[in-house]
Every structure is written in structure tokens, then in C-alpha cells.
């Protein structure tokens, strides 16, 4: 018998209250006390004599006055815990349990807005009443993140009431595998995990390889430091991933599914497990799904701490119980993947797009993005930027839009606006590259950024202000890839180690121009010759900074100076004669009497005596110590 999704949706809508208080219960908001906030809200609401429902499926069928629910991540974590109140659509930020009484009294009972809990735009200091009034959200195009932050991720019925699983039902009951593959191909959907391979094509390649057992694997091993869009989707809308996998299963004639999730995301694991159970109990997973003969079930496996397992062959070996060491391709997983069977591996975000394409059509999706990269992409915007968080925008959006409009501009270390402070943005995580002010207006899509030596990757965007040393940035990423290299192929294993050693030499002042030549030659060999994607892209942070910030490297090795003043060993201070007023303050503070100069006269630092403690720089009121 076919499952009647419409009926489930109707019955859900009939029982849920219009008045609703939604508290974000993503990882970050929970860390900030969201669960305590929920308890406080519940207590206060009940104290006020209002009946409140906390679980929409509770036995008592009578309608309550309101529904207090949890949601997944809104992607605006620094402002958490976040509270949304419906139907007015009031959006409160940084809410504390102590605020509960006031919210109940003023907003829930008397429909008043509490100004102090609203978000204040950093640009103009104005209060934003609802989610969509905030520039950070207003300028985004939230498609795959739309439901996260609104629906209850632990409630399959609510997902269904939003049209969920209709796409899977359509695919499974009325489409052929070829038709589904073609739809994905027509939509222009490309893999969100890094390389941007057309999803439809990947599915077609797997479909043609006949086998009694085939696998759909969801790659949820989001390991890029500074990227958390997959976590957000799994925490906020896990059923979208499952639905995407079901559609993929039909498209490639798969029998089994795996979700390989980072163990660092316990909440995501919990929500996904719950979602699978719920789907199973409705018959959406298991034998004879939607009565159409498809049998498909999903197992969750937690990673054990290896970034390289994001690489698909390594991920396969990890599921097989082995060391996560990549193997050469071909053979591609489409032909010989998990346990030697044809396997499709898609990333979380990619799979979450699939039901939307089913629901809204290929044309709709295609129109969202740029000519070569359809749809939207979620970026994790972090670093020296006013609004950090998840930003979903159509492909083709410029970095300027993301950093300066949505992100609210560049900040200093303390988070204060730094209008001319933009130096670089690191895109694509440890496999990516650093782009510069001159790249701010290029449209971001898979192919454009590639032309600049960068990759979209999983979508990390780290904004860096002018106090950042680009050599140190390259070193940070190299340290990461070096420690995450699986150790199989010599170029990546030894190459990353040697590149790191060279970067250390450069930062310590132990390098010369020859080091840069050597570094570049090594980086090139590693990028061209490594076995897997991790090794091939590991040199990108080095190569891109060498390309766009060569002068900084040269300053380190020739002048033995760190222009950003970050590399301690190279921070011998000097006094700018044009700025020095001869106030003598620095000379007085210098612990080793390395500064000479009489009052009113230009001061000078004796580099022999100087211990590079930086006190003079901190002391100078005129910015004369550089």
C-alpha cells in the first residue's frame, strides 16, 4: 500500500498550534544554554497559565495555546541562543534563561516586542524585528537551509507537512532510474563536497554497472576546519538527506545506504539516527518503499577521526573496517566501490538539494545559479568579519557581496569594524587558496575560482584582515594537512612535512630566496603527483599565497621582516622617522635599553640589543614603531 503523505501532512497541520515559540537547538546554541532556556520558557509559560505543548505527538490530543519547539541550526551561531516567535515572526538573539519571564509577559501575552533582544545591524545600529529583516539573512537565498531553523528536526511529520518525501515518492513510484538521472543532469546539480562533479553523471555511471548489491553513501565527514554547513543540515533537516538518498537509491538501483558522519558531530549523529528510525517506522525506509518494490535501508557510521576519510576511496575503506588510505582511481566507486560493489558517494549538501529539484524541477534549480554552476551554495563565513555564520547564496554571487554586505564587513581582532582592513579571503579550506582584494568581484562558482588557483571546496570562507601574516596562514593549513595526511604516498606524506619545515624556516628567519624556489618546486610536484585529492590540493594554500603575496614571503626571507608583525622571530621593530615625535616613552619602557634618542629627537632601535618583545610598539602613541 502506498503511504499517503498528504494525509500525514493534513493531520499534522490539524494538530499543531499557530502560536509557536521556536528555540534553536543546534550545537552552538545548545552550548550557549538553549536547553536551559527551553526549560525556563516552559516553566514561565505554564506559570502564566498558558497551556503549552512541547511534543506535538503527545497523547493528549486537545489543542494547546502554543507549541514550544526546537529547531536545527540557523547558521548565525555567534548570536545564539536564537528564539523565533510565530506567527508574528519575531526573532530574538542572545536570549538567556533569565529573559524567559519577560518574553512570556511582554511578547507572548501582550504581543510587545522586546527591543533589547532584537538583533542590531552593525552597519547602521538599527533593530531588526524578524529574521528576514536582518541584512545577513535578507541578502541570502536560502533554499537548502530554508527549513533548518524552522521545522523541528526530530519530527518527520513536520517535514512531510512541508512537502517532504513527496519527491522521493514521485521518483520511486513514477519515474525510471534513467529519468531521475536525466533530471539531475538537466538541473545542473554538481557535487557540493569539493570537486563539483555533475551529480546526474555520477549516478548514470553507477546505474550502468549492474550488480545485485549497490550502495548510496552520504559523505558527512565534514572535516574542513571552519566549515559546518553539513552539520547544520543534518541537525536542522535530517530528513532532506534521507530523502535525497532514497531518490539516489532509485536512480542507481541501490539496495543499501550508509551515512558516514564525523563523530565530532554527536548531535547530528543523534538526529540522523532518529530520522532514520522514524522513516523506517513509516515504511519510508526498509522493504518495498512506497509499495513500489524498492528496498533500501540506511546505516549510520561514525568516523573515528581522520580528515582524509572525506576522500571517497578512503571513506570506503573506513566503512570496510580498514585504515582510511585512498586507492588510485580508476577503478571509480561507480564501478567498484564499497565492498567492491558499484557505489555512489554524495555529500550532505548535494543530497539535500536533490528533493528540492524533485519538488521544483530542474529549470527552477538551474535558474538559481550561474551558467556553469546551478543552484545555491552554502558558505561558512568566519574570521575577521562582522557576521560569521552560514551563508547560502546562488552560485555566481561575488565575494564582495558575501563579505561586505551579508558579512557586514571586515573587523579587527576585537571584532570592531575595520573598513579598509580587508587583506585576503581563504576559500575552500585546507585544499583551497587565498584570494585578494582584486578578486572581490569575480562571481564565485566552481569554474571561475579554479581559474584563480582556488576551489569552492566544501565552502569555507575565512576573512583575514591586514594584521594577518600570509605565510602564517599557509603554515596553519600546511600543519593541518600534514597531520591529516594518511601517509600512503610519498609526495603527500614527506612533501607536506618538508613544506611545513620550510614554512617554519621562513617564519623563523632561517630561510633564503633559494628556500622559496625549493618550496615552489616541491609544492608543484606534490600538487601534480600526489595520489589523492588531499595531497593534490595540500599545496594550494602555499601556491596561492606565493602567487598573490610573494612580496610577503620575500620580506621574510630577504629583509627578515614579517610585514604583518605576526612572526615573532622577525618582528625586530624599527622607528619611522616621519612619525616619531621624540617623546622618549618607548626608550623608557624598553626593558633592555635598546632605544636611543633624546627628547624631541627621532629615536632609533639598536637591533643588536633588541629582544623583539614588542613593548615599544605597544607604547608608541603615534604608530611610529613598525
Amino acid at each position, binding site marked *: 500500500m502506498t503511504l499517503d503523505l498528504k494525509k500525514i501532512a493534513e493531520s499534522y497541520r490539524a494538530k499543531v498550534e499557530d502560536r509557536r515559540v521556536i528555540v534553536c537547538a543546534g*550545537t*552552538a546554541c*545548545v*552550548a*550557549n544554554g538553549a536547553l536551559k532556556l527551553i526549560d525556563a520558557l516552559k516553566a514561565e509559560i505554564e506559570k502564566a497559565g498558558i497551556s503549552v505543548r512541547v511534543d506535538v505527538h503527545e497523547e493528549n490530543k486537545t489543542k494547546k495555546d502554543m507549541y514550544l519547539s526546537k529547531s536545527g541550526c540557523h547558521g*548565525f*551561531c*555567534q*548570536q*545564539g541562543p536564537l528564539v523565533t516567535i510565530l506567527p508574528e515572526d519575531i526573532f530574538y538573539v542572545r536570549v538567556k534563561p533569565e529573559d524567559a519571564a519577560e518574553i512570556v509577559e511582554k511578547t507572548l501575552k501582550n504581543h510587545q516586542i522586546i527591543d533589547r533582544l532584537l538583533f542590531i545591524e552593525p552597519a547602521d545600529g538599527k533593530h531588526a524585528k524578524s529574521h528576514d529583516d536582518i541584512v545577513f539573512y535578507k541578502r541570502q537565498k536560502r533554499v537548502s537551509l530554508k527549513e533548518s531553523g524552522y521545522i523541528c528536526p526530530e519530527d518527520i511529520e513536520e517535514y512531510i507537512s512541508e512537502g517532504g518525501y513527496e519527491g522521493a515518492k514521485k521518483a520511486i513510484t513514477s519515474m525510471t532510474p534513467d529519468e531521475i538521472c536525466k533530471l539531475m543532469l538537466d538541473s545542473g546539480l554538481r557535487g557540493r563536497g569539493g570537486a563539483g562533479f555533475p551529480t546526474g553523471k555520477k549516478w548514470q555511471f553507477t546505474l550502468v554497472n549492474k550488480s545485485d548489491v549497490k550502495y548510496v553513501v552520504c559523505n558527512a565527514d*565534514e*572535516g*574542513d*576546519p*571552519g*566549515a*559546518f554547513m553539513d*552539520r*547544520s543540515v543534518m541537525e536542522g533537516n535530517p530528513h532532506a538527506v534521507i530523502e535525497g538518498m532514497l531518490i539516489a537509491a532509485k536512480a542507481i538501483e541501490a539496495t543499501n545506504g550508509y551515512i558516514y558522519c*564525523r*563523530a*565530532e*558531530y*554527536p548531535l547530528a549523529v543523534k538526529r540522523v539516527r532518529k530520522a532514520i528510525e522514524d522513516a523506517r517506522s513509516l515504511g519510508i525506509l526498509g522493504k518495498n518503499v512506497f509499495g513500489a518494490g524498492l528496498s533500501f535501508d540506511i546505516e549510520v*557510521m*561514525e*568516523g*573515528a*577521526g*581522520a*580528515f582524509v576519510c572525506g576522500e571517497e576511496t578512503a571513506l570506503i575503506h*573506513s*566503512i*570496510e*573496517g*580498514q*585504515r*582510511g*588510505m585512498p586507492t588510485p582511481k580508476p577503478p571509480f566507486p561507480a564501478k567498484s566501490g564499497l*565492498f567492491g560493489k558499484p557505489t555512489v558517494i554524495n555529500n550532505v549538501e548535494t543530497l539535500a538539494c536533490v528533493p528540492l529539484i524533485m519538488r521544483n524541477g530542474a529549470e527552477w534549480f538551474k535558474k538559481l545559479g550561474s551558467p556553469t554552476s546551478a543552484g545555491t551554495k552554502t558558505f*561558512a563565513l*568566519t*574570521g*575577521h568579519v562582522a557576521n*560569521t*555564520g552560514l551563508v547560502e547564496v546562488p552560485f555566481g554571487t561575488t565575494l564582495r557581496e558575501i563579505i561586505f554586505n551579508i558579512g557586514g564587513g571586515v573587523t579587527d*581582532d576585537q571584532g570592531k569594524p575595520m573598513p579598509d582592513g580587508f587583506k585576503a579571503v*581563504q576559500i575552500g*579550506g585546507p585544499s583551497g587558496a587565498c584570494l585578494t582584494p582584486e578578486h572581490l568581484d569575480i562571481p564565485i562558482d566552481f569554474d571561475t575560482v579554479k581559474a584563480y588557483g582556488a576551489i569552492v571546496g566544501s565552502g*569555507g570562507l*575565512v576573512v*583575514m584582515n591586514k594584521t*594577518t601574516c600570509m605565510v602564517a596562514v599557509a603554515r*596553519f593549513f600546511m600543519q*593541518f594537512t600534514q597531520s*591529516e595526511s*594518511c601517509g600512503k604516498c610519498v609526495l603527500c606524506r614527506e612533501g607536506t612535512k618538508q613544506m611545513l619545515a620550510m614554512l617554519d624556516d621562513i617564519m623563523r628567519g632561517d630561510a633564503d630566496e633559494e628556500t622559496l624556489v625549493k618550496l615552489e618546486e616541491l609544492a608543484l610536484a606534490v600538487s601534480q603527483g600526489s595520489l589523492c585529492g588531499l595531497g593534490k590540493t595540500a599545496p594550494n594554500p602555499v601556491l596561492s599565497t606565493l602567487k598573490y603575496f610573494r612580496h610577503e614571503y620575500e620580506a621574510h626571507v630577504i629583509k627578515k621582516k614579517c610585514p604583518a608583525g605576526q612572526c615573532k622571530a622577525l618582528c625586530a621593530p624599527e622607528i619611522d622617522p616621519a612619525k616619531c615625535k621624540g617623546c622618549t616613552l618607548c626608550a623608557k619602557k624598553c626593558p633592555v635599553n635598546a632605544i636611543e634618542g633624546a627628547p624631541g629627537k627621532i629615536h632609533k632601535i639598536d637591533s643588536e640589543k633588541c629582544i623583539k618583545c614588542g613593548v615599544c610598539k605597544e607604547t608608541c602613541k603615534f604608530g611610529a614603531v613598525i
Partner: protein
Amino acid sequence: MTGQTDAKLEQVCKIIEKHHSDGSKLIPILQEIQEVYRYLPEEVIDFTARKLKVPAAQVYGVATFYSHFALTPKGKYLVKVCNGTACHVKKSIPVLNAIVEKLKLSEGKMTTDDLLFTVETVSCLGACGLAPVLVINEDVHGMMTPTKAVAEIDKILAQEAAK
């Protein structure tokens, strides 16, 4: 002591049985065993290898490949300092250094002698909005500073002393 050892080994047997002695389930099996012992003792690895009919060298290879597995006992409190990109640019290393100094640890020694604390760095916990982030067992602490981090450690020390 022996009784306790046997009880734990029995749990290991149950874990292996639950996974049908399937060698391909080695990683979840080791994860569950580590929950029992809080690390992977040598004799338990050998035992598991025999049960699964997987060479001990291979099990050792897997156990040492993945950073979550520990071959030496970990502390009661696992302190993870996130050093993902966002946390790094927001100065996670000073936070780490403060904790290391507070607990008198060093680079090769990240577990206290009383087995109360183990300190680790992790690359990104996906809570970048709260950078820099510190996780003690299951509890996430955001927007850390060296002072705040040491205060969290002190809190635990006080709790433990009160016991």
C-alpha cells in the same frame, strides 16, 4: 579486580557478537570497546583480533590510524581545544597553552598523572560562531579566553576535591 576485568571482557564479547564478528565492522567495534575501557588495552586488541579473525597487526594499524582511538588510558575529563580555522584566527592556541600550563602538561604528555584530564586539540567542531571553542567531555564552552578556560578547569578540580 579480576571480576571487573571479566565483566568488561564480557561486554567486549557482547559488542563483537552484536556486530556478528564481522571484521568490516572493526571501527564501530573498537569505538564501542573504547567506551568500555576509555582506551584500547593491548590484550583487548589481541582478543578482538582473534575473535574477528583479523590479524592483530591490522587491528593495531586501524587503531593507530584514527585519532579518536587511544592506546593509553585517557583522563576522566577529556578537554578538547578546537583549533579549526575560525578558532585559530580567534586565538585558540593561547587557550590551549593556558590549560596545558595549568595542568602541568607538555607536548608529549597530554594526560595528567592522576588520570583526571586529557587535553587534545581537534580541528573544527563545527561551532565556528562561538570561536574559540573548548569541549570538556560533552559540554561545549564557546568564546573562550585563557582565563575563562582555566576557570573551567578550576571548577572541575574543586568538584573533584569535594568528592
